[in-house]
């Protein structure tokens, strides 16, 4: 089998290269191979001494304003430049970043004591005024008014009643009502502390790459759009001995195979790749794989304005007819965990549905029985239109679902969406105008169950686009966010999870692993779901 593989790959390579060679030569003269010179150049560079991390990134950031952009392609860059007051430890407790310590005099007041002597990249010291200004900017309270900042919504900082600087190094934030998720929200890059004079010098906009001026371990140096971004070490960084690297350069390499190829040759030394590539680097001692369980999960959301889907039996039947392990095997090469909408990485917040919910047991017969009860049979099959999101893994999941649901009298018609269609359809998935009965996609649980549960499934939740409404769930969500008692929160959220999973307004499938493929020489990099791009103690060995 191995031989067959090799033979075929070589013949394919040969067939295609023939085209190229036929091209180069015009029959007789062969062009001097650029291959040799290039390889020599690459090895001639003292790469290890450089201490520059070369990061292959799949998408060019769509802007550099931390208050308006949340896409991973952008955050992986500007999180090196901007910092927030606090951040997560790997065990999901909080650690101070720009805030050295904090206290909660009552359940709506947060007092942050800022680190002293922290400098922005323009050399000025960061003070409490900058913190106040940054939050005012998010909330639309500066001269520039509303900037469409995602952080201004209720699920982030919308509940802030006042924010004041007590002195140069103390900030007091007062909320309108208690919000247990507030601390977790502060770790979001929407809470980045920006430099007032830079905002003003750029007429309120921080979208341009050269306006990046934060307090972070790396500063912006130069870039060629759609090609590379170079960050260099901040020599005045507040943390002793950090960062160890002299810089990070991001190279745009949109195609997975290109990233893997560049990693092999050492032209980059870090990139994220999907599980399919694991077998390729097995036994390659120059490449190691760092993985972590992500906070994301794949789902199939139902348009509840569609009459046939209002029947809870149909939704439950589909849940039982889905072999989640098969999805994981086919789509993620076996490298994912069965998930609900509170991804397994959320630890103690998770209700173990795979073990406890009957709907998570793959049981085609029971599912068929439910469908028959609902009036479906081989002669009366249901047609389910399904919109599939943008990622390969989503589209692949849709194909598997189509096959599995076939067994229980459901004929799925898949439509892959283009990016613009996706955002349009997403917003109206609770109306017939959406044009689809269901949507297959991937969402993130976030870092606090408030987002995972209320944001997606409470009646007024911003991402509850399905038309799902259950007063009990709403009540539990309200309870859980109003108290800071962890045990009380946990029991409320677990209760809410049981209800949502039983009613199945969405089906949930898998939470994928995320992989960094890294040169063996890269040390001191330990990604985890809540912070996958911390390079403060990363260095290149030798």
């Amino acid at each position, binding site marked *: *089998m191995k031989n*067959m*593989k090799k033979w*075929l*790959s070589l*013949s*394919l*390579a040969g*067939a295609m290269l023939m085209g190229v060679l036929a091209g180069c030569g015009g029959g007789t003269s062969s062009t001097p191979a650029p291959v040799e010179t290039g390889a020599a150049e690459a090895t001639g560079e003292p790469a290890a001494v450089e201490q520059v991390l070369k990061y292959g990134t799949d998408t060019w950031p769509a802007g550099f304003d931390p208050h308006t952009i949340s896409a991973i392609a952008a955050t992986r860059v500007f999180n090196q430049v901007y910092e927030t007051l606090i951040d997560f430890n790997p065990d999901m407790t909080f650690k101070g970043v720009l805030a050295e310590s904090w206290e909660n005099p009552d359940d709506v007041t947060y007092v942050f004591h800022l680190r002293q002597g922290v400098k922005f990249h323009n050399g000025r010291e960061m003070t409490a005024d900058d913190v106040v200004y940054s939050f005012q900017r998010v909330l639309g309270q500066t001269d520039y008014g509303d900037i469409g900042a995602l952080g201004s919504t209720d699920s982030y900082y919308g509940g802030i009643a006042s924010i004041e600087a007590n002195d140069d190094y103390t900030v007091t934030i007062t909320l309108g009502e208690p919000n247990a998720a507030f601390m977790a929200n502060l770790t979001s890059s929407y809470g980045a502390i920006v430099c007032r004079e830079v905002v003003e010098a750029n007429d309120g906009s921080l979208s341009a790459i050269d306006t990046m001026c934060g307090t972070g371990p790396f500063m912006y140096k130069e870039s060629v759009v759609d090609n590379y971004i170079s960050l260099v070490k901040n020599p005045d960084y507040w943390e002793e001995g950090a960062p160890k690297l002299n810089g990070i350069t991001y190279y745009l390499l949109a*195609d*997975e*195979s290109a990233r893997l190829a560049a990693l092999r040759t050492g032209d980059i030394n870090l990139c994220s790749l999907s599980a*399919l590539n694991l*077998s*390729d680097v097995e036994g390659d001692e120059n490449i190691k794989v760092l993985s972590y369980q992500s906070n994301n999960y794949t789902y199939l959301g139902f348009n509840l304005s569609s009459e046939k889907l209002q029947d809870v039996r149909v939704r439950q039947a589909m849940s039982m007819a889905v072999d989640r392990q098969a999805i994981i095997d*086919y789509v993620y090469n076996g490298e994912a965990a069965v998930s609900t909408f509170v991804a397994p990485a959320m630890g103690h917040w998770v209700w173990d549905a795979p073990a406890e919910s009957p709907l998570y047991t793959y049981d085609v017969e029971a599912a068929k029985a439910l469908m028959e009860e609902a009036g479906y049979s081989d002669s009366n099959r249901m047609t389910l239109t399904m919109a*599939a999101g*943008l990622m390969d893994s989503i*589209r*692949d999941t*849709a*194909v*598997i679902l*189509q*096959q599995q649901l076939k067994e229980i009298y459901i004929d799925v*018609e*898949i*439509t*892959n*969406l*283009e990016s*613009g*269609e996706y955002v349009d359809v997403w917003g109206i998935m609770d109306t017939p105008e959406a044009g689809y009965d269901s949507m297959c996609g991937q969402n993130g649980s976030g870092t606090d169950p408030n987002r995972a549960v209320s944001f997606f499934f409470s009646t007024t939740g911003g991402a509850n686009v399905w038309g799902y409404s259950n007063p009990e769930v709403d009540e539990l969500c309200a309870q859980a966010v109003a108290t800071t008692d962890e045990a009380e929160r946990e029991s409320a959220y677990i209760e809410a999870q049981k209800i949502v999973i039983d009613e199945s307004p969405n089906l949930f499938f898998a939470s994928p692993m995320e992989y960094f493929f890294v040169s063996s020489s890269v040390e001191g990099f330990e990604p985890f779901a809540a912070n996958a791009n911390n390079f403060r103690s990363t260095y290149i060995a030798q």
Partner: protein
Amino acid sequence: MKSVISTLRELWRDPMGKIGIIGVVLLIVVAIFAPQLAPYPYDEIGMRFQPPSAEHLFGTDKFGRDVLSRVIYGARVSLEVGIIAVGIGAVCGYLLGLVAGYFERWVDRVIMCFMDILFAFPSILLAIFISAVLGKGIGPTMVAIGIVNIPVFCRTVRAAVISAKGLEYVQNAKSVGVKTWPLLVRHISPNVVAPFTVQATLALSGAILTEATLSFLGMGIQPPDPSWGSMLSEGRADMIRDPWVALFPLLFIVVTILVFNILGDALRDVLDPKLKT
């Protein structure tokens, strides 16, 4: 005008024409009788990434679907899209180019103005637009690819017409008082047959591949239906690891384009009046 039958008969007499006809007919037969020929349903999932074996002659893909069956069914989509899309582009482009090249002056200017607009328009945007108007699937895909192809045909034909008009015998015909349309059809068309058939066969491969790009962006053929282009695009990441997934659709694309080209060349030779001497 020669009848279709006599043209075919002449084609058959030419060895290259024979190969072309047999090849094209075989492909069409494969497409039409796909359900009878395919050993498995094209969407049946199973053991993934199986190398070619007696059970799965072309191996299996990432879902464990039989690549041979998908290639056979894919012939339907790819040939349909290729032929009809190029047909739309060729017919529209041919007529417009003929008219523009013959009349020149303002007719030419108006037509070429539209062609330039169309040509400079990003084809992906055009496809998004057409799928927003006409919906998704094979029909809109063919229309989108067809429209993208119009300017190329139009310019090719127009250039050939302009150059043919300079030829003596066309000038003579005109001076003898032959009317416009008969002149176009009888005397100019044969001159543009050559570049035109070349363009058409080239556009065919372009169309098969554009369809792949569109499927990739979410606009072309919808899953689980196979097309050669989308199979190749899906298998691209596996070209070293599991090469059969991409190799076989690629092989069929290449063979298809070859036989259509061979047929195109032979057809050109048969139709070209000047070769008769």
